Every structure is written in C-alpha cells, then in structure tokens.
C-alpha cells in the first residue's frame, strides 16, 4: 500500500493533493509512473494517426469522462464510426473491451487495435515508431521510463499504463454522500429494477454481452461514409452477407454463433453524467430515456435476454433511479493529471545525420 500511495503521488504530481486523497471505486492499479506520463503525452498526440489528424483524445475527451458526446463517434478521415465512443473511466479494470467484446487480453492490444485499424487511426506503426524517434521529448521520456529508445511496443505499454490511471474519483456513491433520492434509487437498482443482475461490481458491469433489444441507429445506414466503414468492419470479421446487412451484430463478430447476434457488452455505469448519449450506438439521449427503455422491458428482438421484462416503475421511482445513476459520477478528468497541457509536439532535425546511429 505504501508503494501504491507513493506511485499515485508521483503520478498525480502537479495536480492536487485532493487527487491523491481521492476515493476511488477500487484500489489504483500499480503502474510505472514515468511510463504512464509518457502514455499521457502519446494519448493527446495526433501523430499517432496516419494523416496526423486524430489522437486518442479526438474521440475520448477528458471533460466527457473520455467519451466524445456524439451518438456515433468520428473516425479516420474519409470514414465515420458506427458505434458510440465509450468512457475510459476505470478502463484498466475491464475484462473485455469494445462494445462487441472482441478484445479480451489487455490494454496494450486495445491501443494497437485503435492505432492500426484502418477506419480508426490508420497508422502504420512502423512509421509511428520513427515519428516518435524524431521528437526529442519522446526520446527523453522513453529513457526516463526505462526504455532505450522509442518503439511501437513501448508506446503501447505506455498508453496502457496511462489508461490504467484513469479512475473514477470521489463519486457520491463512493464517498457516502448520496442524496436521499439516490439512496432510494439504489434500492430500486438492486431490487425491483434488478439492474444489478448485469450492472454488478464496483464498475457496475459484468463485462459480458447481452441482447437488450436496443434499436438500430439509422444514421449508420443513411450515410455512405458510415455505412462503408461498417462494411469494412463486417467484412474483416467474416460476417456473411455484409453488403445487405443492416444491423450491428455485436458479439457475433467474435463468436460467429447466431444466438449472440446483436448482443453488446454491459457498459459501466460510472461517469454517466459526462457520457451522454447512451448505448453502443448512442440511440438514447438521456438517462431518463434509458430508464424508460428498461422500464418497458427493453426493445424488440427475438434474441432479447428473457430477464428483460416490464418493470412497472412509477415516475418517482424512475426519478430516484436516475438520481442513483447520477451518484455514480465523480469528478471531471479535465485536470492536469489526465491531460497533456504542453503544446510541445514537434520534430527536430537529427543533426550530423550521416554520422549518428539511426
């Protein structure tokens, strides 16, 4: 615990004493502080995308709990995404990543997927590595993090460590300062609403996919840039009839079992006040809409999870439930500990190029 506290102190150095004393849902994950700091700079660097137009932060804004406020996220130049950008709060604790759960290994792999995927950042990581080596700030930061020089793998590990530091802080639920409405809502959450059946644990998710009948978002099929991006994805994952498909098959891309069609990972309920709109395709604008959706027993899908049944909540119960959900949001991530503020991204000529080692 001493180690952890010291690391946290280093990590959040320059932010606030408050941050060090923050109440978090779970104990912080131990990371290499210098590597996490390096990851923070990488996270905001657009040179991690092929045409230098996007950084991780382009779709994961710190002031929106690292979501982007859009129903459907943007994507690489010439594309548009078909999914909602998820929060990165507590992302290091997840058992699986992406709405379809297709990554179940670690955040290093998640970073690789985001950086190299053609419709996301479309980066040839060999070019990325050489870009990093051309930036003296990175050369120093990689050394400080115990790596001899900038590399692909090192960059991914650094992003992983930075992401592991992104933890909810001082949510009323954790600090014991919930309103009476929120406390009443918690009883519904755990009782009559049985939301806890899937939204369990400190992050309020079991990290498993379910079909809840969320309606499709017609924007995916109405805009050719978005639709073609979806086709690229579906084709890559071997989905049959991808040209005539007009629905997001979710976890099916990973399992290829028909009964998993249109199932998506239970999302965390942390930081919801920052992350509207909701659902994997951003189809609900408010928490009230989401509560109404589940109160009605979810959507219309033959593969819908049978546990979804009408809840018959009265208006005051719905309001209490929303109050509880809101109590799961903590302080903004738009603080120095999570944002690379310096405008210091640049390349420098390597002088005496012919005589120095590459």
């Amino acid at each position, binding site marked *: 615990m001493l180690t952890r506290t010291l690391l946290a102190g280093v990590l959040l150095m320059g932010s606030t004493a408050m941050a060090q004393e923050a109440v978090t849902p779970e104990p912080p994950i131990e990371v290499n502080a210098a590597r996490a700091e390096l990851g923070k700079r990488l996270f905001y660097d657009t040179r991690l995308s092929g045409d230098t137009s996007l950084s991780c932060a382009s779709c994961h804004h710190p002031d929106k709990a690292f979501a982007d406020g859009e129903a459907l996220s943007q994507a690489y130049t010439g594309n548009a995404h078909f999914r909602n950008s998820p929060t990165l709060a507590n992302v290091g604790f997840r058992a699986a990543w992406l709405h379809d759960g297709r990554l179940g290994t670690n955040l290093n792999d998640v970073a690789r997927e985001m950086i190299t995927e053609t419709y996301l950042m479309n980066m040839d990581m060999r070019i990325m590595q050489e870009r990093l080596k051309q930036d003296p700030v990175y050369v120093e930061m990689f050394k400080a993090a115990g790596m001899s020089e900038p590399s692909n793998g090192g960059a991914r590990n650094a992003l992983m460590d930075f992401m592991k530091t992104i933890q909810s802080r001082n949510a009323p639920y954790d600090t014991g300062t919930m309103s009476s409405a929120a406390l009443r809502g918690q009883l519904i959450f755990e009782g009559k609403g049985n939301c806890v059946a899937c939204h369990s644990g400190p992050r309020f998710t079991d990290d498993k996919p379910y079909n809840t009948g969320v309606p499709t978002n017609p924007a995916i099929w109405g805009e050719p840039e978005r639709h073609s991006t979806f086709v690229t994805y579906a084709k890559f994952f071997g989905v049959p009839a991808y040209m*005539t498909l007009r629905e997001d098959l979710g976890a099916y891309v990973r399992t290829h079992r028909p009964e998993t069609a249109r199932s998506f990972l239970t999302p965390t309920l942390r930081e919801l006040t920052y992350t509207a709109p909701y659902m994997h395709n951003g189809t609900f604008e408010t928490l009230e809409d989401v509560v109404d959706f589940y109160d009605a027993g979810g959507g219309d899908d033959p593969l819908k999870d049978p546990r979804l049944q009408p809840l018959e909540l009265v208006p005051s119960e719905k309001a209490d439930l929303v109050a509880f959900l809101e109590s799961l949001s903590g302080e903004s991530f738009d603080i120095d500990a999570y944002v690379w503020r310096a405008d210091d991204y640049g390349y420098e000529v390597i002088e005496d190029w012919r005589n120095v080692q590459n």
Partner: protein
Amino acid sequence: MSLRSTLTALAALAIASAAGAQDNPRPEGLAPLGPPPIPADNPMTPEKIALGEKLFFDPILSGNYGMACAACHAPEAGWAVQAPISFGYPGTTHWRNSQTIINAAYYGKLFWAGASGSLEHQARSAARGGVAGNGEDDMMESRLAFVPEYREAFREVFGDDWPSVRNAYMAIAAYQRTLVQTDTPFDAYMKGDDDALSDEQKRGLELFAGKANCIACHNGPLLSDEAYYNTGVPPYDGWEDDPIAQITYRFEIYAKGVTEAKYRKLKDDPGLYFRTKQESDMGKFRTPSLRYTAYTFPYMHNGMIETLRDVVVFYNEGGGDNEFAANKSAQIQPLGLTDPEIDDLVAFLESLSGDEILIDYPDLPVMEPLPAQN
C-alpha cells in the same frame, strides 16, 4: 495489305534503309517503340480502360479518400511529380522520385528497384503503401460499393456482384497501358525518316551509341536494359535537414526488411538489396527509360539531378559517389566529352520525348447511400 502495297512498302523501307546505311546508320541495339505487351489475363476493352481512367484519378483508392494515383502521377507534371521526391501521404514524405506513367506499360518490373512484377501489382502496392496511398483493401473495396457508377461498371467489365478492389487494380493497369508514346522524333528517325532528327541530334545519337556508350544500359526500344546498377548517384539531400524525410528514411529501411545492424548504420537507399539481400546489390536501381524525360525532371531515383544536361555532365565525370561505392558499376568512367558534345547528347535525349500528353480530367462519381434491397 495487298501484295502490291506490301511490295511498295518493302521497297520504300529498303530505300530508306539504304539511304540510312549510307548517310545516317541507325545504331545497333536501338529500335522504335511498338505497342505495349498486354497480359493474357487482363485483356483491354474500352469499358475497362474508361473505368481504369476514373479510378486512376479517384482518391477513393487511398486511406484518407484524398490521394489518387494522379496525386503523385499528375499529367501536367509529366505524369509524375516535378520535385526530387514524390509527395508522401499526408503527414509523411516519400523517399524516391515519382516515375512517369508514360510507357510504364513496357517495363517487366515496376518501382525503382523492381519490387513489382506487373502494373496490376504496382497499383495495389502504391495504394496501400504507408507513405503513398496508405489505404487498405477491405476499406477501399467497401467504398467502391457505395458508388452506383462503379457498381455498374464493375458488373459490366468484370461481372462483379460488388466491386472487387483487385479488379480496380486490373482496370487501372489497363488504362495505364494506353498511356504510351511511340511517335517521338527518335521513333520516326528509327523508322527511316532521316529528317526527324536535327544534325545536332544525329551527332548526339552517335555519341550515345559510341563515345559516351550510354547505349550499354540504355538500349532497346525503351532505352533501358531493365537491369540494375549503382552509378554513384548521391543520396537524397533532404535526409540532411528535413525531419519528416529522416522519419521516412528509417521507416523504409525498417519496413522493407534489413538486419538491425543495417537499420542502425545505413544512410542511403539500398535499392535492389531489399529484393535480393545480396551485399553486391546495395545501391543498385533499374536503368530508367529515357523516353518522355523532357517532362519528368528532376532525374534519378531520388531526383538529385535537376536537368538532362546535368545528367550528362554527371556521367561525363564518371558518375558520383555514395556509400555503396564498392558496388559502383565499372562501366561508369569519365567520358571526356567536350561541351559541344554534351550539347549534342542533350539534344538527342530531347528527341526521345514527343508532345506532352495532357488530358481532360474525368468527372468522378461519389459515394451515395445504399438502401436495403426489398
């Protein structure tokens, strides 16, 4: 052709040859350029060529929907880039000189070090390269499906239910096989028209095939033996002072595959070595055709020589130096040409270009929504 006209033609040719043999002998080893070879698996049809033309100019075949083939092979720039190094993909620069599309159809291998065996393969490599098109086949193919005009054309030309990106490269290659120039003054001269070259150019041709011995490598109808040599072209000077160029240099040697020791040490383009991994091939590049060079300045694989005259001076001085000196061709020796001889040689080189080939850019179709079929 009737017997009579055949005989007449033969007689005319005989007369021309006789005259040529008397006054202006045509050197052995050079020839006029005929039609390009058409591969049996990609026959030419007007519809395929028209489709290929659109695709050549359409940025749909790139990662960012912004870099058409024509971005680095622009008709008004000699179907190339009139700068030492080709434009790279946004955020990058390239590391070699963009080669003209004109007469590319005749090469057995494409790219400066012969990395591609066909125009079809070359198109795909360029569309996908990290410092070129940076596209990916699944994504580019998906986009093509959203263009109604392409759906129709790919169905008609290739029988595709949905456009196949592999067939896009076939169509582009077919279009490129129409971008040839076989009517230069040199071609007319080689076919018997004694007046097609000026006296200066004729003297230049004699030097080309004689004292200067350019013909040792620049031979055949293409004026290239398609073999690989190190002539001592100096390294690209942008690597000294351009950080983006330094990035691309390291990326290329890393991506194309060298040992770590070489990755650390190399400072110039190893060229053919990437394909053969033979030390003796370090710094070798394919002899380029000399056709259409009036429009394709600057010259050499890295654009390090600005004018045709500079190129002639370069070889007159016995070529240059680079870090692969051990592999420099022994054929490259000082030539002892006088200034008037250099002028003559340059004048001859200019006879290898005809009129500039310019076209009206095609209208490009765009992606449209694709409603469900019911």
